[in-house]
């Protein structure tokens, strides 16, 4: 789907075409889910946050001015909904999260040895134990492949702030990994 096609679909959705909005949902649902998961860290809340974000997007679609990409606007909603969900969760209880299915890592890949896969699992675990913003920034930038500008736009902060979170996140990640390796 080209950018022009998407723009056309957005216009149709704005006029109340449910089919067009469904197309937008189908196109962005997996990425929205991945972003939500990177923040809430469990499948149930990620599903809830992603669906909630689409409902909000539908409600406020008329306000989307099209001065940025639809995906950026949508992912900003996903991030906001997910962060709110994390806040609620923290208030409710700080529960343990199982991140064994968090990342479809190279664990099942025949090319990797068991040792490598263990190391990768350690890496994933440490990544998911980073503070929320550092984790979100590292995942959005380096695993989802978004640019620093896009990340800053989604998180509604400056590029400098994104870089600071990235730098701290990467350093934290490395230090925790080094600690494990020394043990």
């Amino acid at each position: 789907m080209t950018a022009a096609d998407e723009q056309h679909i957005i216009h149709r959705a704005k006029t109340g075409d449910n089919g067009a909005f469904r197309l937008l949902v189908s196109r962005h649902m997996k990425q929205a889910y991945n972003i939500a998961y990177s923040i809430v860290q469990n499948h149930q809340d990620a599903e809830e946050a992603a669906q909630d974000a689409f409902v909000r997007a539908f409600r406020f679609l008329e306000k989307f001015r099209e001065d940025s990409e639809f995906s950026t606007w949508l992912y900003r909603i996903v991030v906001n909904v997910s962060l709110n969900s994390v806040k609620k969760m923290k208030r409710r209880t700080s529960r343990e999260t199982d991140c064994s299915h968090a990342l479809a890592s190279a664990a099942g890949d025949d090319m990797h040895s068991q040792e490598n896969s263990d190391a990768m699992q350690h890496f994933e675990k440490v990544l998911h134990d980073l503070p929320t913003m550092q984790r979100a920034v590292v995942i959005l930038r380096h695993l989802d492949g978004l640019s620093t500008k896009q990340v800053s736009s989604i998180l509604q902060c400056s590029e400098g702030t994104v870089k600071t979170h990235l730098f701290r996140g990467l350093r934290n990640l490395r230090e925790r990994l080094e600690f494990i390796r020394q043990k």
Partner: protein
Amino acid sequence: MRSEKHILEALYDYLSGEMSESEKRKVEVHLQRCNECNAECDKMRSTLERLSALRYAPSAGQSEEFWSEFPIAVERRIQAFASTRERMLRFVHWWGKRVNGATKYRLATAFIILAIGTTVVMKWNAGETQIPSIAEKEHNGIPLELVDQRTQRYFRQSGVLMVELANRKHYEGMPTDLSLERRVSRHLLDEARFLKQQSLTPYTTKLMSDIEPVLIELANSERHSEKPTVDLLRDGILQGNLLFKVRMAQIAYDSSSRMRIQYASIKE
């Protein structure tokens, strides 16, 4: 690149390719001169390489069926939202049409008076429970209220300690610092010893005995404990359903002391 921080942040830009050619050259010159930054650069490069080796796709963990249902679920939620909004709009419309101006003001005033009245009554009740009263004495001369207070505090602290332990994150391979928990558990063991000498209900004594093994295990644990110790403590808490029991005991003590205070204030 005067400060160390500046160099480190410049290293990130350098490695991620978000840097102009001239800045890149400056960093490369610096890296040739500075061993520390060079080492840091290697470490960061290796972290970024490991990140790029990960295939991040939590969405891949969901079935095809899940993804075919997803847009339908979103649509269902949109419809639910729309029908709620419609009901609200209908109510607003009805309110505007049926209720005339004077009635609207009367109803709003009644609502405000009701809200203020409820707040005042609640505050008054809260104030009532603060009436100090030590009406009864225990056989060994310790006021019953003091025993109650200490028992309440014991359960509250035990509850906080166990919630903390149950939710404590453990990083694989990293020891968990339990020094604070050990101190608290020792204090709680002393407190339990004192309270058991007072006349408590059989349920309270039994619950204290149930909590005791966890506290003893914690008090005797290493300052930096490995995962098995933390797991053992957690199992002890979960198997004995201690969090629930402690919470119930807290509620029972709160309400019984409130009732006793109210009873004493009526007698006075």
